[in-house]
């Protein structure tokens, strides 16, 4: 084989009291896509950050084309031709899309920025990824998925010899995922060495040549993807025998008894918010899972927020258990035992400086308080219960939540909701960025909760998850409701058809207008 473009040997990293990576070696070759898989907290992101100079190595070496390099900062790594998409969207929300696109390599002419070129080139590049966003708009105003596409496009367009992608698809739709994988193939053709991290195993098998499995900060195996089955890969990630695994839950969860006879516990009707939502209605009965489907920016998250009182409404009503809720605030929903898992874990969910314990107890505070005093014992009890039940992996309840891996952070947020003992659960991307094991657990948990009579609204960018997990699906586009699918009518094709029809109708309408 050729000499690797980039080689890491015996990399180790400790954080105060935590061993994140121990003696891990990988080799990246030109024109090859190298997958990095493992459970949440296995050390994937840490390995990447060691390569790109975000953290100094505690031990081991990084070699670029045979030469020892120790990047002092991401800047030096970037200058050496390593482009990276970090796990969370790391861009500046106030800046325009174009500026974010060119972050770190802005074109100048006579010392001045070439804004025209920036706008034109970024718009052009984004169009190639199927995004027609107004590049002069602040990035922060766009949905998370689109932000992620901008981050991807930015890194790929940088002409690098190594491209590292840490969970690039966690907020993407199947359609965008397809497009991304096409781009990965193109990079490969151009002789770029690609590192690809994902919890979505389909993508690994479709796009990657080599797969490295990490577990607990150690290297488990490295080898050609083709030599592994899906089941074997999962077994290696989890550290169990392939035989013990029942991959379960991949099919539709038990055909539950129809719930039509029960009174709806949530009736959100005619939700309308200028420019964002138009007459969307969501009705959920106890034990029912209603999925919201749609493309990026179709208004799913906004619908959930509207139901939860976190988005002011121009018109529309929200009824819970027959009581009409007039105050459009999250607090009023929580009092009526409606809970929401927000889409953007970091910005809207976690309080990063607080411990796991305090994050879990946050929403249920009124129940845990007597005469203004927080009952330590009750908090400890409830936290222990849910940490066990959701199998949250941490040093203990007092660990800072920001030190957890993504999947465990997600579980902390779920625990926060569950200790409210909610009647209605709004889940916006509950499995975003969590590993196969955890994902299966979360999916099973959702099913279990529904079985116990909870009403669930489920949003997921993985269409499969919506299709398999929902009893009813509401399809959205541009903030408007396209239709409702029930029971066996719910298929990926049916959903895509609905969306496609609406799109072509719109094109016709637009053509009609332009003809006039």
């Amino acid at each position, binding site marked *: 084989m050729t000499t690797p473009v980039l080689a890491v040997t015996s990399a180790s990293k400790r954080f105060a009291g*935590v061993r994140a990576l121990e003696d891990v070696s990988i080799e990246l070759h030109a024109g090859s896509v190298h997958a990095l898989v493992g459970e949440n907290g296995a050390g994937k992101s840490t390995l990447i950050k060691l390569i790109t100079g975000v953290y100094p190595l505690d031990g081991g070496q990084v070699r670029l084309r045979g030469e020892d390099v120790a990047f002092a900062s991401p800047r030096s790594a970037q200058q050496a031709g390593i482009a990276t998409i970090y796990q969370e969207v790391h861009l500046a929300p106030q800046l325009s899309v174009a500026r974010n696109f060119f972050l770190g390599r802005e074109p100048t002419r006579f010392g001045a920025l070439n804004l025209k070129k920036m706008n034109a080139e970024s718009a052009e590049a984004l169009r190639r990824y199927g995004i027609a966003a107004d590049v002069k708009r602040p990035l922060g105003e766009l949905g998370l998925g689109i932000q992620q596409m901008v981050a991807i496009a930015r890194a790929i367009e940088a002409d690098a010899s190594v491209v590292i992608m840490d969970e690039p698809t966690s907020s993407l739709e199947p359609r965008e995922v397809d497009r991304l994988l096409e781009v990965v193939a193109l990079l490969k053709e151009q002789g770029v060495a690609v590192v690809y991290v994902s919890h979505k195993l389909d993508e690994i098998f479709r796009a990657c040549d080599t797969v490295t499995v990490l577990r607990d900060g150690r290297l488990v195996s490295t080898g050609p993807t083709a030599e592994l089955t899906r089941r074997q890969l999962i077994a290696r990630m989890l550290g169990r025998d392939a035989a013990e695994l029942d991959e379960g839950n991949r099919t539709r969860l038990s055909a539950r008894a129809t719930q039509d006879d029960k009174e709806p516990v949530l009736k959100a009707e005619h939700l309308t918010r200028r420019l964002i939502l138009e007459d969307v209605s969501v009705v959920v009965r106890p034990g029912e899972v209603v999925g919201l489907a749609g493309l990026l920016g179709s208004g799913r998250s906004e619908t959930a927020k509207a139901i939860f009182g976190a988005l002011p409404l121009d018109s529309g009503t929200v009824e819970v258990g027959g009581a009409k809720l007039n105050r459009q605030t999250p607090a009023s929903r929580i009092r009526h035992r409606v809970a929401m898992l927000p889409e953007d874990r970091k910005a809207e969910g976690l309080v990063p400086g607080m411990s796991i314990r305090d994050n879990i107890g946050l929403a249920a*505070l009124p129940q845990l308080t007597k005469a203004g005093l927080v009952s330590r014992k009750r908090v400890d009890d409830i936290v222990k219960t849910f940490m066990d039940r959701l199998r949250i992996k941490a040093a203990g309840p007092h660990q800072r939540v920001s030190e957890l891996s993504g999947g465990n952070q997600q579980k902390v947020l779920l625990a926060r909701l569950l200790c409210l003992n909610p009647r209605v659960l709004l889940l916006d991307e509950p499995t975003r960025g969590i590993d196969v094991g955890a994902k299966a657990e979360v999916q099973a948990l959702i099913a279990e909760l529904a079985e116990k009579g909870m009403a669930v609204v489920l949003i997921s960018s993985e269409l499969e998850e919506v299709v398999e997990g929902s009893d009813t699906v509401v399809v959205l586009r541009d903030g408007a409701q396209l239709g409702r699918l029930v029971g066996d009518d719910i298929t990926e094709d049916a959903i895509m058809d609905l969306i496609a029809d609406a799109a072509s109708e719109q094109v016709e309408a637009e053509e009609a207008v332009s003809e006039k």
Partner: protein
Amino acid sequence: MTVLEKVKFNDRTAVSTWIREHGVYLALLILVVYNVIATTNFVTVDTLQLLFSQLPPVIIVSLGMAMVIGTGGVDLSVGTTMAIASAVLAKVVIAPSQGGFGAPIAVAIIVAVLAGVIVGVFNGVVVAVARVQPIVATLGVLVAGRGIALVITGGALVELFVPFFAQVRLGKFLGIPYVMIVAALLAVIVSFLVRRTAFGYRLLAIGGNRRASVLAGLPVKRTLITVYALSGMLAAVAGVIATARLRASDPSYIGLLYELSAITAVVVGGTALNGGRVRVLGTVTGAILIQLLETTLVSHNAPDSVARMVEALIIIAAVYIQRPTRRSK
């Protein structure tokens, strides 16, 4: 099967972590040792008495400031609030013949503290409901407040001959001045509030992530208004004590630049300005450190310019030592 394995600290890490966490205590220790060696007459009861009589207003104001900073805000109005409380106190207590209401001192103190609460509620509403950035909202009061105080007293320093004030200044219990006991009690209460009550829990959550707190159904507005009201109240208490110390209400100078002292005490005490954390003991220690530093410099008859430079250096050094590690984001 977790990665999170406790690794034995090696000694160097342990020491540097301890210093990082407890820099302010170390600094105080060094300063005390220096004084014991270099300052004549330092190791006397008098020194403590002096500190104890000068410290309470700064400590009390810093406690409120620490809570506000814990929410990710800042309260620039505390010094002015002290002046307003002092002016209200004077107005209520002086005889009608001199343009006051001639009320008993207890009533006057209550009204003065209420005035502080009102100022705080105003700040809180502007911050929480109108969503104006705290630094701007409270800057407004900083700019306008002394004018209000001057209007209340009719412009000038008003001397107050209130027997109770002598108690405030000189009264002692087991050799500790009453005012110091009050300050210590307030510190305990604030510490308790922050650490043990639902209110404190919410305060820290809001400081840590306001948006997440809204979505977790916390009464964010109410909590913020309460925090600013408490800060106003504590500032008013400090204003009353400062007035008693001076035996006069001097709206132009009472509390002048206290906002800077309080912010400094909080920051030197290890509370970061971005919210989500309140270190009460650190704040109190920070206040003591600054006051002792001032006293030391004055005792050694240092020229004002040198004193200011030493102070600035100590502040920056203390914050530098306690800065967050590179690792944590």
